[in-house]
């Protein structure tokens, strides 16, 4: 077994990454009929007991969340079953610096972050890849639902939507560089979730029926407001004064709120004001702490600007390009014209106005199944 064939699989203890590991360790042989040498790695990212018992965060973390001891146990059991070497790698400091802290800061600045994308960009496909290469694995594999192919004509690695559209995770992967794509395998890209569970059963993985995790891994119970308050208290930082006015689109003050971090654009519940027609958060102004609320129709936006761009299927954006733009995880991509609008900035103008364009979320641009690239909505 030559070193260059060693593949490090990122194992979270869930069905997807466990099955990805099984496919590589047990499944199809390489072109030359040699087996892959597979090493399992679990990233220890966050101590789930760290904020336990403060601000109403439960004492005992439940399973199905990254880095809970149960999940590390599950990942290790799978590695034992597959008879592959397995290690837990501590990335807690990096994770806090590059994912958790920015997550808190984004909310405090009135934006709505996607920590999973930050984690992919800074931890999984950066630090994990470095660790993998340090230990002699030139490639990594993950359990993401995405397809990754090299296109000879363009001389570029192309990221594409997977067979299982409902599980498509390309939205979270728009930050991958060409070098990262060249070194990454997505063994589940051509499979549907039911097929993955079938494969898990076939390989004898005892976690084949384990439920999917949905929430943000480091936020217990999904209550990010409590998490932010507990985190700031632990850091010895006074929560910044974030209370302010709730205003109508006309500027009329219609109420007060206790903090802009409690709001996200498009939010309907928990506004604290009553009205004949349903009200939604339309805008959050971090400077004045003013939260504008209005009717659903006012949420519609014709265009967006994105920064910190990363291009995948094209070397750079130089001219107006027709794309379908996706502005949040569950958003159905909508036709737009994409054009450069400044240094490291692009503007997408939608054919039809889109609801709740939210600063802090990713904007990912598609050409058919291909990811053209993406950036962060400002």
């Amino acid at each position, binding site marked *: 077994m030559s070193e260059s064939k060693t593949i490090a699989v990122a194992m979270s203890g869930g069905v997807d990454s466990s099955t990805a590991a099984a496919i590589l360790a047990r499944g199809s042989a390489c072109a030359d009929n040699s087996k892959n040498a597979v090493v399992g790695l679990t990233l220890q990212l966050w101590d789930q007991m760290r904020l336990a018992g403060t601000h109403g965060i439960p004492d005992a973390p439940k399973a199905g969340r990254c880095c809970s001891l149960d999940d590390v146990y599950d990942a290790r059991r799978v590695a034992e079953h597959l008879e592959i070497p397995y290690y837990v790698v501590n990335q807690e400091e990096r994770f806090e610096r590059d994912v958790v802290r920015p997550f808190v800061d984004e909310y405090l600045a009135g934006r709505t972050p996607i920590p999973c994308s930050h984690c992919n960009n800074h931890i999984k496909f950066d630090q994990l890849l*470095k660790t993998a290469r340090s230990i002699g694995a030139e490639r990594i594999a993950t359990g993401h639902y995405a397809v990754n192919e090299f296109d000879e004509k363009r001389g570029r690695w192309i990221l594409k939507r997977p067979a299982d559209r409902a599980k498509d995770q390309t939205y979270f992967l728009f930050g991958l560089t060409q070098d990262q794509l060249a070194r990454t395998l997505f063994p589940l890209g051509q499979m549907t979730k039911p097929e993955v569970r079938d494969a898990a059963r076939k390989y004898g993985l005892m976690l084949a029926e384990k439920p999917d995790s949905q929430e943000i891994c480091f936020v217990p119970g999904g209550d990010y407001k409590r998490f932010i308050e507990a985190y700031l208290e632990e850091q010895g930082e006074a929560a910044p004064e974030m209370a302010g006015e709730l205003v109508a689109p006309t500027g009329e003050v219609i109420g007060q709120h206790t903090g802009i971090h409690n709001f996200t654009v498009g939010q309907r519940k928990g506004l604290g004001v009553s009205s004949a027609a349903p009200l939604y958060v339309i805008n959050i102004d971090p400077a004045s702490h003013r939260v504008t609320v209005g009717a659903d129709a006012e949420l519609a936006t014709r265009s967006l600007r994105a920064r910190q761009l990363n291009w995948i299927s094209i070397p750079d954006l130089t001219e107006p390009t027709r794309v379908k733009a996706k502005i949040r995880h569950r958003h159905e991509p909508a036709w737009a014209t994409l054009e450069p609008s400044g240094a490291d900035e692009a503007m997408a103008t939608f054919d039809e106005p889109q609801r709740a364009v939210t600063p802090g979320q990713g904007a990912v641009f598609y050409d058919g199944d291909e990811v053209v690239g993406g950036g962060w909505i400002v």
Partner: protein
Amino acid sequence: MRRVYCDANATTPLLPEVMEAMRPYWMEEFGNASSIHLHGQKARKAVDHARETLAKFFGCREAEVVFNSGGTEGDNTAIFGLVRAGDHFITTSIEHSAVLRAADRVAARGVDVTFVEPRKDGLIDPEEIRRAIRPATQAGGRTLISVMLANNETGVLQSVEEIGKIAAESGAFFHIDAVQGAGKIAFDVRRFGCHLCSISAHKMHGPKGVGAMYVRRGTPVEPLMVGGSHERRQRAGTENVPGIVGLGKAAELSMESLEDGTMARVARLRNRLEAGILEIPGTGVNGTGESRTANTTNIHFENAEGEALVIALDLKGVAVSGGSACHSGSTEPSHVLMAMGLDKNAARASLRFSLLKTVTDEDVNHVLHVVPQAVEHLRALAPETAGTSR
């Protein structure tokens, strides 16, 4: 692939003689040592024989040997069994977590706890222990001092004899966590001047899950486990007869190793290994040079991440350790190295090599072949990550 095990301070394999000594006590001689009948008598005889060996090993009377489950139990028993609210417990910041976490617990129960810091070379200055003792406590409650004989991560040997004298002068009780020193240096609890001394079988080629504690006659240590009247009422629970037999054999063999030149050979190979690794640029030894256990060296690699290096070496057949395992199994920077003044990155960039007494020249050759390559590969990939200089 050739595999070389350089993690003897984590655990050691049974020597064949130990395995053979234990063999009859699983099935044939299975008796309970407390039973009156012949089965019990055979088990009792085996335990008594091991006790005689351990008494020689410690340099104490047979009645002063208490068998238990290992180092953690010994450390816990010394601390929980001796100090109460209002007492003073003096220990060091470089102890094993079996002492440190027990210290945290008694502190929460009202015991006054002092952690003495080591010098940069990893040595605890006995005068710092003396300064920590409080006259007021001497008059009233108890003072317990607990210091390790040899540090598990650096191998640095502490000046236990001097600390023993200080304890005697001040009327303090003195416990030695000798888990890492046992079998590696000459042993004499009278010379050490301690009241209590804990050892573990599996660090000296004995079985896991068994250990022993020297308890000086008259030391008022309360048992951790209560129940039957085993071990002179000092440790309840049916004796682990095969384990105790294995410990006895391991102790006997380790006394021979100190006499027959084995440990001198280990020291020579450790020195060769260390010198070879130090030829890699940007490396240095953590912990004092001379006063160390023969098998251990702790080396700092600039611009290398210890955790990745441990994995890379493992995949190339060299088993070493870096830092201490945290709850999930990943590594946290060593509290020992940080107490010695290394920053987090430097502590993370340090590896412990601890050799078995069966180590050979070929083993050392293999390690010296693999380590420089792995370090170079790591540094070439990520010059910017971790491991800044000290």
